[in-house]
């Protein structure tokens, strides 16, 4: 079972942390307001009934007391609302400008139903593309450029920051910073069709050295086949249905309909965060993706057992 971090209440970076403070502040104020108001209501009922039992018709100076009571309530509300508004605006303001120094820029394109991730210009080899799993260095802000090539999606990693929509025709920016190394799960938050529920991503926050190592491993082409089994696997990939949609660096497969598979074996999950990346899951996914994600754009593949085995071995060699 995967360890899952997907919570607003366990902030792992400054943006989520300031929001978390805001939430607890708002929660306490709201609880007090709630208790006071509901308390006032029940007190009003109780004292009116007591008066009725005692045969009193109308409280003394009723009108004046009601006026001052309602007036005090409104005044208190104004003060509370303005304090909240002020606190909120101060939080919102510190969050907004993009920090000037950000070494990592990642372009994310929302697709039905996976995240197409391109690292813009961090390594000497230039850009590279991966999917659904985003590695970032801890302790420094990372800039994301968000767009969509089909419908509106929304990127949301609650432990790190609030969400931003990916809208066709727009490019939006989002930045956040992870302070603690770890894996933070995020999920598409804007309804985007059949598999909206299974469109997740993982942010892997690593110390800088580990992050650099990862970037280096991702930048090159996919591992060439080393033995006859992987060779056969690559052949199955290239001559069958797979290559119609997927690309693997260094091979003729270059279609960008589905996620890039150049380094599939290095990823923690498959099917946009729906399954752990194991040989068995991969096999099940290739044979019948519609059982796992009904409506997903990947067709079922009825491969001969031997071919499937070779294909799996090949895909698992793509570190």
């Amino acid at each position, binding site marked *: *079972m995967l360890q899952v971090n997907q919570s607003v209440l366990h902030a792992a970076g400054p943006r989520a942390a300031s929001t978390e403070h805001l939430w607890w502040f708002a929660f306490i104020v709201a609880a007090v307001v709630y208790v006071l*108001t509901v308390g006032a*209501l029940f007190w009003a009922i109780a004292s*009116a009934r007591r008066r009725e039992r005692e045969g009193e018709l109308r409280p003394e100076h009723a009108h004046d007391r009601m006026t001052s009571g*309602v007036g005090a*309530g409104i005044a208190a509300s104004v003060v509370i609302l303005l304090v909240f508004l002020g606190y909120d605006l101060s939080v919102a303001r510190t969050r907004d400008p993009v920090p000037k120094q950000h070494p990592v820029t990642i372009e994310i394109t929302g697709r039905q139903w996976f995240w197409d991730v391109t690292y813009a210009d961090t390594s000497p080899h230039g850009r590279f593309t991966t999917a659904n799993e985003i590695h970032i260095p801890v302790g420094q802000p990372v800039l994301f450029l968000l767009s969509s090539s089909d*419908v509106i999606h929304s990127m949301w990693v609650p432990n790190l920051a609030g969400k931003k929509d990916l809208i066709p025709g727009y490019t939006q920016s989002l930045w956040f910073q992870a302070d603690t190394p770890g894996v933070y799960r995020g999920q598409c938050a804007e309804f985007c069709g059949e598999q909206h529920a299974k469109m997740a991503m993982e942010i892997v926050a690593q110390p800088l050295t580990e992050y650099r190592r990862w970037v280096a491993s991702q930048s090159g082409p996919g591992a060439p086949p080393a033995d006859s089994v992987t060779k056969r696997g690559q052949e199955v990939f290239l001559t069958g249905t797979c290559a119609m949609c997927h690309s693997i660096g260094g091979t003729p497969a270059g279609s960008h309909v589905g996620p890039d598979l150049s380094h599939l074996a290095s990823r923690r999950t498959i099917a946009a965060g729906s399954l752990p990346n194991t040989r068995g899951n991969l096999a099940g996914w290739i044979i019948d993706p519609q059982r796992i994600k009904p409506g997903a754009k990947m067709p079922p593949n009825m491969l001969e057992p031997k071919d499937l085995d070779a294909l799996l071995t090949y895909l698992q060699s793509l570190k």
Partner: protein
Amino acid sequence: MSEQIVTSPLADLTTRPGLADEAELTELAVTWAPRPGFWGWLTSVDHKSIGKRYIVTSFIWFILAGLNAGLMRIQLSRPENGFMGPDRYNQVFTTHGTAMMFLFAVPVMTAFALYLVPLMVGARDLAYPRLNAFGYWVFLTGGLFLFISFYLNMGPNTGWFAYTPLSGPEFSPGKRVDVWAQVVTFTEIAGLVAAVEIVATIMKLRAPGMSLNRIPLYVWSVLVVSVMIIFAMPAVAMASTMMLAMDRLVATHFFNQAEGGDALLWQHMFWFFGHPEVYIMFIPGLGFISSIVETFTKRPVFGYPVMVLSMIVTGFVAFGLWVHHMFATPIPLLGRTFFTAASVLIALPTGAQIFCWIATIWSGRPRLATPMMFAIGFVVIFIIGGVTGVMIASVPFDLQVHDTYFIVAHFHYVILGGVVTPLFGACYLWFPKVTGRMLSERLGKWHFWLWFIGVNVTFFPMHILGLEGMPRRVYTYLPEMGWGNLNLLVSAGAVVVVASVAVFVINVLVSWRSGVVAGPDPWGGPTLEWAAASPPLPWNFHHVPVVEGRSPMWEEAGDLPIVEGLATHKREMLVTTALDAVPDSRHDLPEESIWPFIMAVAVAATFIPAIYTPWAYPAGLVIGVIAFAGWAWPRGRHPKHQVTAGRIPRTEPEPT
């Protein structure tokens, strides 16, 4: 001026014949007699008959949409549940939202207003009875269209908000979204018609003496809401009928960024309607609470000017909030600040009203009958939705919980707490007026407690789910997310909610047949509807009353002022001036007519085929012209009014 002595304070205003006017009453009964049978039902224009079926119809949609919610709760009760696939689930939640918003929450509020407003302002009917009937038939068509499509696997599946480009031609094959767009068209036509109807009735048909500062608070609430409808609904009607449907039907490019259109334009258009819509449902709920509180504390609500101003301010500010649904989209900083401030401060007028009710209760003699329990339940449930509403006005916090179950919890607290709970209270309050029988108090208490517990058990855990990262509109979730137990609890709560609604339905069905017979005024209410019989006769009031205060039924004993001189041989109403309600003229009401129904058929025959072909519009126009001609062509009922040639002298009003 004649004087007469009657035996009861009410007799004169109701149906029981007074001593001297038996003949007049007989004539009224003949003039206003409804036509019998099915044909009479089809042609009826009586606001009470229409209002009653409007209410029942919208409750049927409520129950069907509620069953959809039940299906969703079954699916989500455990992770990776296989009860429904995503395709079915998307249809289920879209139909649930669309029906609840477009076919229940707003229409049931206008339906209550269509029934109650003429009674509360002392009029014999609404200003345009045939238009009213037309609105109902259009509304019925919309609901049938949505649910029949849904049961045929043709239900819309892009959410009740139908964001483009997901709902556009490329990503929504088939006609499902077109069904949605036309259902919206039908309900908006019905809503706009009802709004015009209500505004005209309140402005022109009030009883003499009911100046603007004496209008019951409930009537104020529906007046505010009707004006809001007039400005809010054109936006969505236009966006769905003229833009989304046209994008899908004739390939226009309003939302296609590749040709210079804009996907965000839809969101602006939709939420410009969608946010006021929330207040359109909610403000009449406030009106219900005011009616309940004053009836069951025997005190007029404290701070009438504050109450009225609060509703008007809410109505205005509601139009300045829509962008808070779009904080995750590209919106300039200044805009976000403005919309945050507006969204925070709109809590103020509602807070002021709650304080006024508490003061009223404190100074009065509260009686905990079922409607009053619902009013208290309203405060207890609604405030939770209110305070979370203030929280999500904050941009940073909203960006965390937007489109999560926190929001689902928030708006269900607001809508079930602020709309449906007062609505149930209103049902218990006015059921005796509508049917002449009381709802069972015993079942009512059961209903209330099941409802109160069910709503809280269902929706409170959703706050936590949202904070724990569960997004909305997901058909399933992975076991390792750890959301399973809370979701099971939520689903269990949903069972309690279903049980409470079942108790309500049983209560209504049983009491309608065999409830305790209620007099005209079982609760001792303050407003004029309690002066009419229960159920009111077709002409509502024997004599139009003259109003001398805000609570006409509670005025000190003494002479009961009435109006005389309205014709009884025809359906005549008194028209008064807009501000001070000074009698100004008399107005003839039309009789039963089949043409509203035929006009509604013409509307249906235009918009339903229009999901397949644009030629439906000219074709529908032809049917519409025929219906219009039938509707408007004079019958020549009053030959003495006819003019044959030349310049005619002004006829003097005939003596009564």
